[in-house]
Structure formats: structure tokens, C-alpha cells
């Protein structure tokens, strides 16, 4: 039976400090940089050692694809034997192409999810399973109701192309208040794609709640970075709570 997944999310920003570490991994609050927490290559290695299910590596760059980012992906993949999803201002086919060539297994696209031509190109060249579509929203976006918001997302036309849908509520990001699950049921009826949620975890019970709501995967950023609960520990703990998660290889 397909296991539920836990996915560490490593967000990176380019910094002005000296080489060799050009990109630093950061924590965000409400999608804005909050704290610099380390070297992304270290983090990829650590998560792989912890036998995570997948790794998500995102470059936060306000809509501008950075040519140095694929190089970071390539270095991350040097000894990588864990699935890797990458993203960060991918707006053209050439961006996707170079990221896949650098070792990415999947690409995550947020803002450009209305660019159907780009999405279709990725799907026809790499398959639907290679495309993760991220719906980044805030509590304010839901002020007219969940259904209205979902209708508007459906109208973009990407739902049938997505290999996975990722839901990220800006208002919960870095808050530790638990994950927003209001969109999950509606989206499960709208698309067959697996659903990944994140933003707001501060305890193991938040994670268990996501899986109880039927989500397929949960991304973790601040929670992993600022507590001593590693993925291996969390996996064991939520399996005790009845979640079907991989605990042994």
C-alpha cells in the first residue's frame, strides 16, 4: 500500500557573502525571509541520511529564474539517492529543461501555473508525474469562501495537467499554528492528483491531522529546523498514531 510521505522543504536565497556557499537555506514567515539557517547542500545530505521520502528544494526569488540555481541542484545531486523536487521562478521551458538535466526528478511551479503552454510542454516531455503545481494563497484569498477560490483556480485550466498539487497558506507559513486543510476536500473531488500540504506545523499532531484529512504528503521547514525532532523520529511517532508511513526500508 502506498505510504504517506514527509518532505523536508529547503528554501534557499542567494546571499552576498563569499564563496563557496552562495545560496543559503532560510526559514520564512508568511513567505518572507525570516532567518538564515545554513548550507543547503548540508541540509540535503542530512535529510538523505535520515532516509526522508523526498526532498523539496526551492529558490525564493520573486519571479526571476536564477542561472546559478541549476548548479546548486547539480551539486545537491552528487550523491543523492532520494527523490528531489525543485522550483523557483520557473517560467520558461528552458528553465525546466536545465533543472531536469541537473538532476531534478520533479519541478514545482507556483506563479506560472496559469501558463498552460509551459505546463503542457513539461508534461509532454517529462510526464505528468514530473510536474507539481503549487497553490500559494492566504486567508484573505478565501474571504469569499473555499468554493469560490477553487472555482477560480480550476478556471486556470491546470488541474488535469498536475502530477501533484501542493497547497501553501501564506498566513500559516512559519506560524506553528497548524496546517490549513480547508481546500483539501474540494480539491480531492476536482483532481486525481496526489495532494501535498505544508506551512504551519509545530507538532507531530499537526502532521497526523493532515494525513487524517486525506493528504498524501506533508512538507516541513521550520519544524525540522528548530526542534530536535528529525524525520526519522517523526515517522516513528506518527506511525504510532496510526499513519501508514514508511518506517523501515
Amino acid at each position, binding site marked *: 500500500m502506498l505510504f504517506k510521505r514527509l518532505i523536508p522543504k529547503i528554501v534557499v536565497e542567494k*546571499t552576498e*557573502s563569499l564563496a563557496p*556557499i552562495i545560496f*543559503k*537555506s532560510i*526559514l520564512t*514567515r508568511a513567505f518572507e*525571509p*525570516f*532567518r*538564515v*539557517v*545554513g*548550507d543547503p547542500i*548540508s*541540509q540535503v*545530505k*542530512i535529510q*538523505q*541520511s*535520515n532516509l526522508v521520502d523526498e526532498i523539496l528544494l526551492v529558490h525564493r526569488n520573486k519571479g526571476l529564474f536564477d542561472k546559478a540555481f541549476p548548479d546548486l541542484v547539480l551539486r545537491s545531486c552528487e*550523491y543523492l539517492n532520494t527523490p528531489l523536487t525543485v522550483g523557483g521562478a520557473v517560467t520558461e521551458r528552458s528553465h525546466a529543461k536545465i533543472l531536469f538535466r541537473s538532476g531534478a526528478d520533479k519541478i514545482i511551479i507556483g506563479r506560472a501555473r496559469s501558463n498552460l503552454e509551459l505546463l503542457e510542454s513539461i508534461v509532454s516531455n517529462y510526464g505528468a508525474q514530473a510536474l507539481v503545481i503549487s497553490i500559494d494563497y492566504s486567508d484573505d484569498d478565501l474571504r469569499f469562501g473555499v468554493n469560490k477560490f477553487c472555482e477560480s483556480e480550476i478556471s486556470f485550466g491546470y488541474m488535469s495537467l498536475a502530477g501533484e498539487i501542493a497547497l501553501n497558506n501564506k498566513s500559516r507559513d512559519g506560524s506553528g499554528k497548524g496546517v490549513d486543510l480547508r481546500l483539501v476536500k474540494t480539491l480531492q473531488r476536482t483532481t486525481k492528483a496526489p495532494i501535498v500540504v505544508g506551512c504551519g506545523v509545530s*507538532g*507531530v*499532531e499537526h502532521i497526523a491531522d493532515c494525513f487524517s484529512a486525506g493528504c498524501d504528503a506533508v512538507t516541513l521547514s521550520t519544524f*525540522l*529546523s*528548530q*526542534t*530536535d*525532532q*528529525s524525520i*526519522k*523520529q517523526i515517522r*516513528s*511517532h506518527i*506511525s*504510532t498514531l496510526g499513519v501508514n508511513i514508511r*518506517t*523501515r526500508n
Partner: protein
Amino acid sequence: MIVTMRRCNTCLLPETHETISFDHAGKCTICQNRDYRDSKIDWVLRRQELDGVCQDIQSDQDYDCIVPFSGGKDSTFTLLFIVRELNLKPLVVSFDHGFYRPNMLTNRNRVVENLGVDLLTFKPNWLLVRKLMLQSLLEKGDFCWHCHTGIFSYPMWVAIEKKVPLILWGETSSEYTSYYSYEDDEKVDEDRFNQIANLGITADDMRIRMGEAFSQRDFKPYTYPPRELLRELNLQSLALGSFIPWNPKEQAKLISKELGWTGDEVEGVPPEFNYEKIECYMQGVRDYIKYRKRGYSRVSHLMALELRKGAINKKSAEKLISEFEGKRPASLDLFLNMLGLSEEDFEEIIQKHRVDPWDDRVMVQIGKKPHDFDSWQAKPVLTNKESKKTVESFRSGSLNS
């Protein structure tokens, strides 16, 4: 409200234990590991593998192997075994975390002098260590980052420098946790370091989190050597516990008899377990923080070992746990003073690290001062002002790096 935590019905460890999970019968993964160890492992074959490793040792090296040494029962037994049973010439490497107790130093001298071995001690920069302790406490609710990382990295650098391609450690982690099972081929390598030792933060990460105020070379003792250097040397880093069955109580008796190793009074631990964790005077604070985070600590761990062997019944185990566990140790005052923290600062920090479903509403009892408490060395402390700056910087995010 007293929270009922799910516990293993054999060893009583709770669900907040790192890496624990339970089978359908309510038995935990660590107990299952132990069952496997006691029934399925061909220890004769394992010992032959160890002998094979020893046979491959080249005679032109300065030392046959490196033995990392903390002065505790496990590393002392390991050293005894390597010298007298395997007849190897080790270089003993001691990473001084800063909190050696007088009895540990006496033990160490006695042991190395009786065995006739070379000893190398390394004491890292205290001004950095105290900052690492505070940072690590904030980041992970665990102030021992410098010790975990130093103990496992520094001896690797010595091996590289001295061109000694074998390091022999003590017990495997599967004795106490289920990061690995006995079915796994557990090596003491970077994967293990990343799971168990560094709390999810490498030396580079920590340096960056501290605003890059220290250089890469300041962090070298805590940095795991790069793969290329280890491959070049063809370094093997193995746990003795992978090759022989581990029996801490019996091993403690043996080292007392053979080497005059002595136990000590330990904060928060029943006196009959005076062979346990005697080497570090911050052990009491460490155990206390674990209790506040997870609702169990060292006594539960010791009882779990006894219960698995059938050496104690559950009622007696529970009695010892409630009598000795969760008391505020005398060393906490020393710790707070060292790091320039008030009690309120401390409470605020550790409450953020509580692990579900433990709710940490307990009566705080006061623990007894151990006999050598007054000799625990005073060190240059962080001022309250310096530590407040670090705490504030951590809370606010501080992007200025």
C-alpha cells in the same frame, strides 16, 4: 491534567522516545531489536568478521587503530577489549567536552596507565563552546551539540592526520534506539552522524546560524571530514558492538575488576546504577531537559534495559522512575550561570521544545547535590547581556549574516 502516554508493554518507554514505534502486540521497536540481537545474530560469524578486519591492519602504521574515549564504561570496556583481547596498539583519543568530573580523570589515568597505551586529549576553544551550548539549546532544546559532533568528528580528523585507517567505537546505536536495527549494517559514518549526532545541523549550518562570527577553521573539530579524504585513506569506522554482544552491567564489573575503574554518584540516578554516565557533570541538566521535553529520562532508559533482561518487574521499575526522575538538578544553577541565563529564560526556551503529547505540567522537585559538586570547575561565563543578545537574535530571525 496528567497525560497518558502510550508505552511499550515490555520496557515502558513512552511514545515520545525518539524513533520508537510499536507493533500490534504493543512491543516497541527497541525491544524488537533486542529480541533479534539475542536470537538471530550469529555472533561467532560476527567475531570472525572482526578478526578479519584486524588481520588486514598494516604493520607500518604508527597505530593499529584509533579508540575514541570518553572515560565512561562503554569506551573503557572497548579499550580493554582492543588491547587485551585483540592485541592491537591503539591511539586513545579523548575529546574534552569541558565537563569532566574528577573521578573520570582519575579513572582515565588509571586505565591508560594500566593498559599501557598512548593518549591524546583535545580541548576545544571554550569561548566558542559556551556559545555553541546556548545556540544549540535555542535551536534544538539540547545544549550538547558541540559534544555530540566533536566526539564523532574529531577522532576522524586524527585518523586522517595520523593515517590510521581504522576507528573502533563502542556500542551500536541499536542498543538504545531504532535509528538502526540489528539487521542493518550500522557503520559509524556520516549518515549515522547526520541522524544521531548533529541534531540536523552540520558545522557549516551552525556557523551560518551564528551569523558567521566564527571561521570555518574554528569549526573544524565539529565538522565531519569530507568523503574524499575518508575514501583516500579507506577509513573504516566500526562499532565493537556490531561484533560482540553488548552487556553494560557485566562490562562495568569487568573493567572495575581488571582496571580498577570506579563508578560515581550521578544526579537523578539510583545509586545501584553508579556505572552509568559518570563522566560528565552536565549530565544532570541534560537528563532534566529531556524529561521536560519528553516526559522521561535516564532512569526510564535504565529501567527499560533491566526490564528487557527480566532483571526487574514493572512495579519496581515504575517506583524507581517516580522516585528519581524529573527532579531539578543542582547543576542547573551552574549551567544557567555559565550561559548567562535566568530561570525564566530557561523555562521559555525549553517549553518551546516540548514533544507531543507530553504536557510538561509537573511539580518541580529538587535533586541532591553530588559529593564532588563544589569541585565542578568554574569557567568564564557568558554575561546576561551577551546571552540576551543571542536569544533575541534567535527569536527575531536576524537576517544580518
